[in-house]
């Protein structure tokens, strides 16, 4: 702090030579002039004093028969004096701070944190519809109103907070986990079969079982009845609930043509570059969009400083020309391709189903490789169906 003050006011390091420099020091302190960093090297005294007080030291030096000489000058007043004639420099410094202040009044980056299922671009587009985008005046941003609007627009946001830190607008949100749709336990319902199969075991929690183990059932058949008759012959309507495991059969077929059309690159490429700064597009290359069979790859380069994205984005578009070429697959290659496609289908279609065994049938017919797979599975086929009861 003291050093900063000394720098701001400026200070002088001077030497004092004389027969009795102590007298010079005493007189100076008597006149209220303070010294610091006083050192004596041989017969010469080296002192530092605030720049504005140095002039008054001359008369004291004369009185005490001491010769004083400036050795070093430090501090802001001397720097200003040095560059006094270079007005452009001062104007530049003032302009720098003015521009810095002016730019700090606007939003230059938008960060969205916590998006898993929600697309952050959707939130950005909503914000821009509300008039908040890169280059918006910070004072015009009504954070509370924005929070309410975004919360109302997206059903699956449980918590949201919008803060403006410096020139960065950060949106922090937490997505809501949707509960599974279940028939309310107080509502009466039946349990029906979701697919054809043969029942192997049942876990009935509520309701009257209409089928037995070993029975073959078809899709939509009533498995557990919600209307239960007691020993007195009275009927009561209940919320039927059960797990019914059955052996089921799933048949999947995949056909692959032996003659495939492929996109082959010709090697011809067109590169277009542009810079998006402060919401304005600036083309860096004067190349039009190529016509014909071209595929585009975009490489977006964001400039980051201290982990903060600057409002300057570099786009590099690479347009590659391609032509369609025919390729003939061997039988094995075509069957392998069909199997690969089938494996992907199993992951999506037979998810959460236990596969017991499978039967494969592979053949090549009429220029096509056909793979038929029959899966024998064990799965819960119970599906609750609400009962429409009228009083």
């Amino acid at each position: 702090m003291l050093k900063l003050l000394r720098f701001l006011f400026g200070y002088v390091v001077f030497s004092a030579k004389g027969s009795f420099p102590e007298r010079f020091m005493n007189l100076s302190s008597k006149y209220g002039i303070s010294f610091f960093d006083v050192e004596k090297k041989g017969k010469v005294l080296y002192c530092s004093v605030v720049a504005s007080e140095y002039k008054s030291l001359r008369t004291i030096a004369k009185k005490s028969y001491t010769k004083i000489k400036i050795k070093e000058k430090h501090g802001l007043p001397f720097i200003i004096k040095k560059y006094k004639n270079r007005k452009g420099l001062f104007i530049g410094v003032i302009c720098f701070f003015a521009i810095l202040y002016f730019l700090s009044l606007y939003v230059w980056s938008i960060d969205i944190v916590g998006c898993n299922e929600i697309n952050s671009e959707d939130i950005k587009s909503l914000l821009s519809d509300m008039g908040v985008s890169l280059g918006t005046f910070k004072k015009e941003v009504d954070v509370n109103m924005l929070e309410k609007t975004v919360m109302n627009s997206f059903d699956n946001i449980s918590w949201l907070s919008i803060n403006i830190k410096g020139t960065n607008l950060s949106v922090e949100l937490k997505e809501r986990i949707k509960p599974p749709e279940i028939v309310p336990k107080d509502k009466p319902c039946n349990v029906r079969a979701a697919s054809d199969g043969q029942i192997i075991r049942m876990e009935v929690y509520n309701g009257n079982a209409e089928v037995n183990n070993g029975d073959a059932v078809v899709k939509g058949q009533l498995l557990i009845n919600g209307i239960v008759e007691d020993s007195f012959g009275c009927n009561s309507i209940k919320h039927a609930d059960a797990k019914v495991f059955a052996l089921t059969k799933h048949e999947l077929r995949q056909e692959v043509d032996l003659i495939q059309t492929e996109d082959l690159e010709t090697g011809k490429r067109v590169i277009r570059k542009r810079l998006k700064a402060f919401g304005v597009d600036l083309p860096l290359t004067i190349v039009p969009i190529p016509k014909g069979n071209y595929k585009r790859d975009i490489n977006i380069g964001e400039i980051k400083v201290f982990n903060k994205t600057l409002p300057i984005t570099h786009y590099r578009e690479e347009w590659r020309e391609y032509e369609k070429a025919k390729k003939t697959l061997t039988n094995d290659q075509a069957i392998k391709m069909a199997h690969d496609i089938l494996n992907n289908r199993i992951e999506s279609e037979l998810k959460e189903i236990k596969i017991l065994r499978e039967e494969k049938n592979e053949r090549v017919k009429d220029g096509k490789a056909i793979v038929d797979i029959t899966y024998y599975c064990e799965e819960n086929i119970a599906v609750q169906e609400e009962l429409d009861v009228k009083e």
Partner: protein
Amino acid sequence: MFRKKKDKCHNSVRREKLHDIVSDLQLPAGALPNCTHFEMNGNREVMIEGSRGILQYDENIIRLNMGKMIASFCGRNLSIKCLTQDSLIIEGFIKSIEFIT
């Protein structure tokens, strides 16, 4: 000449009376006017308040006028860190302090 002697005598009587009052009231000795005050940080730094001037300034000895007495600070690499109207800070390796009254 006679008047000066009388004034000096009068001043010393007044100071003694003041000293008595301060000791009776159990006030710290620093409460007395024109009292010198020393504050030491180990043997590396000493802050002196109430100094009336520097008599000798050297690397090995600094002698100060304290009014009624002369204080000598002996040591190595002694220097004055800061000097104001009524106080100063001495820096260096202080070996001994001597008072001459």
